[in-house]
């Protein structure tokens, strides 16, 4: 279903034309760096950010980052042009454009960042923008769920990656990736190498959706089609591949690297190939072919072999071109017909000739048919597999399976909807027409580029693959050449076998799909596992929330006082505190009066049955305490104590009017329990105070304030000078708390008032 019906009468707004202009400007900027990079140079820009943590905003341009930057900005132009038309008239078009441009900038930051913490920040920014874009149709529950799932999975990986980065920085003593390239031996020999590898791979595998973290990617197709084309196939999901490529010079070359990448990549590629056939939604088919491509890229990054790395470089570009084109084609079809169901679409060739051509060209590149660049990419993959010694058979096997199924998927996506029978086509309720030009530019240009690069592979080789291989292997001379015709060799024979299997699979795919469909219900799904995990987490949270937050004030207070008593008691035992000989001075008459007053207040509070009397009793106790302060010459504290006591009584009385009458006395056992707690807290506090005063008092601070108060702060009242001058910032914090507490209480009371009265 199309996300909405665009209103053709509306013209292009800023939300429509600003994003492609920004992207085009960036693309042209990056293009200017191409001659330098192709000539073997690198560029570096650095701005100080948080120097005390050696975090800089530093950017490093070499063959690897420039290739990514050109893909991101170049495909960005196409996608943004497309979405300008696709979402025209959508009430939230502006928001969408903002998210999309933010994503593009974050992604560019990710691939250009030289500082590892900078890379991490941009990495998380792509995660967040991806979350916003997947959840763009936020009224749909499915969108929200998918968005959150992608956020959790990739966010978790990002944190693991951060931990890995920090360990690397601790060992290497630098945060700059460009400096790490020469430090591979130090890191590989370090005992923490295993931990680093696991953490970095967690980051890369979650971002690039490798099995078993793949499940978020097909769900991310809940996003509008241009987002799927851009984030979830051509750019963001390749972030993990970028990370692995960036770390290749530093971390590769060990058996752990070789086997973990090979196995995870191969499993992902084969698993995704099978799942791709099972799908009926064309967008889902493409999502799984994306997984397949990501698996292939990861798998070939395992090897230090020059053919394998050249293959990665080529296939990276190849895949971005045809996959973005195909997603946009699906967007055009969806836009015109209102469906993406592979079982129903057919015969669109007549109504949508331009789309048909673009789809055909892109699918041929995907299928790896000569003279398309896809063919060269596939040949290089086979060559890379043949040249890699130990893992070679796995690489070839997985590539063969993936390429054959890719061939079939190309047919499903590009052949049937346009050439197949139109019998089951749903009636969209309006004539099916070609999409407007801004939506066609992308698919046409990208798919034609796939043919152009195939015919003139030299162009791609000089500007992209050789500098990229040089960035990974350190020597441009190691890069292999891109040939359309390399003679009859093993790779060509493997290609021919691929075509044969691919054609067979295409012809059988409806039957295969039904068979997989039937088996599908019995297989467990990772998605279901995820749901189970979340449900269990929620249950745990509710259980422990209910345990700790009972909502009964009585229980909270009991807990607080028991903790105080236990804490004081254990501290006393631990420090073997003794109060020393307690010299009890002869009480004067005024002391006796204060004691009797406080005692009477306490007795009233305990005995009375009325809330108001209890509150008044507590007030009397407070006044007694204030009198003690006065007797021992602390007038400021005494005044405050008196005033607070008075206001507390007023507040309590007002509140008490709202409360029900006190119930008949609580149970005997409960009262005894409370009594024990009260007596033990009281006696423990008394003992503590006695212990404290038996030590000589440290008067250094008091002396300082007494001396400094008048000369430095022009005040004789030390308490107040401390409050408003020496410790003014603390006081500011306190009054902020007072103000916030009052506002929160006000909000609560108003809320209750509304609910209770209406």
């Amino acid at each position: 279903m199309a996300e909405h019906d665009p209103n053709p009468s509306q013209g292009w707004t800023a939300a429509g034309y600003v994003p492609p202009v920004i992207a085009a400007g960036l693309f042209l900027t990056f293009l200017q760096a191409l001659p330098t990079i192709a000539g073997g140079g690198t560029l570096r820009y650095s701005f100080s950010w948080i120097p005390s943590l050696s975090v800089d905003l530093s950017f490093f341009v070499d063959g690897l980052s420039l290739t990514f930057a050109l893909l991101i900005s170049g495909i960005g132009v196409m996608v943004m042009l497309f979405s300008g038309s696709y979402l025209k008239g959508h009430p939230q078009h502006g928001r969408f454009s903002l998210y999309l441009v933010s994503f593009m900038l974050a992604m560019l930051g990710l691939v250009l960042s030289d500082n590892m913490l900078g890379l991490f920040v941009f990495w998380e920014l792509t995660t967040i923008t991806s979350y916003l874009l997947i959840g763009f149709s936020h009224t749909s529950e499915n969108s929200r769920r998918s968005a959150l799932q992608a956020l959790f999975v990739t966010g978790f990986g990002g944190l693991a990656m951060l931990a890995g980065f920090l360990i690397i920085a601790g060992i290497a003593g630098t945060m700059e990736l460009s400096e790490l390239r020469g430090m591979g031996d130090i890191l590989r020999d370090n005992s923490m190498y295993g931990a680093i590898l696991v953490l970095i791979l967690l980051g890369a595998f979650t971002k690039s959706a490798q099995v078993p973290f793949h499940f978020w990617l097909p769900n991310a197709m809940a996003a509008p089609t241009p987002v799927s084309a851009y984030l979830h196939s051509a750019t963001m999901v390749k972030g993990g591949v970028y990370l692995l490529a960036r770390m290749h010079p530093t971390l590769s070359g060990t058996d752990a690297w070789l086997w973990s990448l090979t196995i995870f990549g191969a499993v992902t590629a084969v698993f995704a190939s099978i799942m791709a056939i099972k799908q009926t939604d064309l967008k889902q088919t493409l999502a799984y072919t994306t997984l397949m491509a990501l698996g292939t890229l990861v798998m070939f990054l395992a090897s230090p072999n020059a053919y394998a790395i050249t293959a990665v470089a080529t296939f990276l570009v190849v895949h971005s071109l045809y996959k973005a084109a195909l997603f946009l084609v699906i967007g055009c079809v969806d836009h015109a017909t209102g469906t993406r169901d592979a079982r129903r679409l057919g015969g669109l060739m007549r109504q949508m000739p331009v789309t048909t051509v673009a789809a055909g060209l892109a699918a041929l590149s995907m299928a790896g048919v000569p003279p398309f660049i896809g063919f060269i990419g596939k040949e290089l993959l086979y060559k890379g597999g043949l040249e890699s010694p130990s893992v070679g058979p796995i690489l070839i096997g997985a590539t063969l399976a993936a390429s054959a199924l890719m061939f079939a998927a190309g047919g499903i996506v590009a052949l049937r909807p346009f050439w197949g029978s139109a019998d089951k086509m749903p009636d969209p309720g309006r004539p099916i027409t070609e999409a407007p030009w801004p939506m066609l530019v992308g698919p046409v240009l990208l798919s034609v580029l796939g043919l152009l690069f195939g015919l003139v592979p030299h162009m791609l080789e000089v500007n992209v693959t050789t500098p990229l291989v040089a960035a990974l292997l350190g020597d441009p001379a190691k890069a292999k050449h891109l040939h359309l015709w390399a003679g009859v060799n093993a790779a060509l024979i493997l290609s021919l076998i691929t075509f044969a299997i691919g054609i067979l699979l295409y012809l059988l795919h409806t039957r295969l799909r039904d068979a997989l469909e039937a088996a599908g219900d019995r297989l467990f799904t990772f998605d279901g596992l995820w749901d189970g995990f979340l449900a269990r987490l929620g249950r745990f949270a509710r259980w422990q929330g209910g345990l700790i937050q009972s909502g009964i004030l009585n229980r909270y207070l009991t807990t607080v006082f028991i903790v105080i008593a236990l804490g004081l008691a254990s501290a006393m035992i631990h420090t073997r505190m003794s109060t020393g000989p307690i010299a009890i001075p002869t009480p004067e008459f005024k002391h006796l009066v204060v004691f009797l007053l406080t005692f009477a207040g306490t007795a009233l509070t305990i005995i009375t049955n009325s809330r108001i009397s209890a509150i008044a009793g507590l007030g009397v106790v407070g006044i007694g305490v204030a009198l003690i302060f006065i007797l021992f010459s602390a007038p400021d504290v005494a005044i405050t104590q008196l005033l607070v006591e008075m206001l507390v009584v007023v507040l309590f009385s007002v509140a008490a009017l709202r409360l029900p009458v006190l119930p008949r006395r609580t149970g005997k056992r409960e009262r005894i329990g409370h009594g024990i707690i009260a007596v033990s807290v009281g006696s423990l506090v008394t003992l503590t105070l006695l212990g404290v005063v038996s030590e000589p008092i440290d008067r250094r601070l008091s002396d300082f304030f007494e001396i400094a108060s008048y000369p430095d702060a022009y005040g004789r009242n030390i308490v107040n000078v401390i409050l408003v001058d020496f410790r003014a910032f603390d006081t500011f914090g306190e009054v902020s708390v007072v103000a916030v507490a009052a506002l929160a209480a006000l909000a609560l009371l108003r809320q209750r008032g509304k609910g209770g009265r209406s």
Partner: protein
Amino acid sequence: MKSIILTTGTRIIVSLLLVFSVYMLLRGHNEPGGGFIGGLIGASGFVLYAIANGTSEARRALRAAPEQIAAVGLGVAAISGLIPGLFGNAAYTGKWLFLGATPDSKGFPISNIIAFDIGVYLVVLGAILTLVFALEEEI
């Protein structure tokens, strides 16, 4: 509950309390007192007024909403702490100006410290009245 004795007595006591609160605020730097105590006394005055004449009457006497007073106080306290920044000092450094100071007399002192204390006074006054009024109106 209207009581003529309370209402009449309150008029005098409240005005005394309010004047006293400002007095306590201003003298606080050298004698017992200060913004916190002054705010508490001022709040007591209005609470008394509210008990005698009702909350709506007290709100009218206060003129501004108490939560706004608290917010303004917080703003005054924050700004007074930032002023030293203009002179290149750390936040909350005391800055003093002695108007008409002669060798014999230190003149009339003005400082950001007193502004800060006034901010504290307003926060305490506003916050307490916010609570008390809201609670009273609930009944």
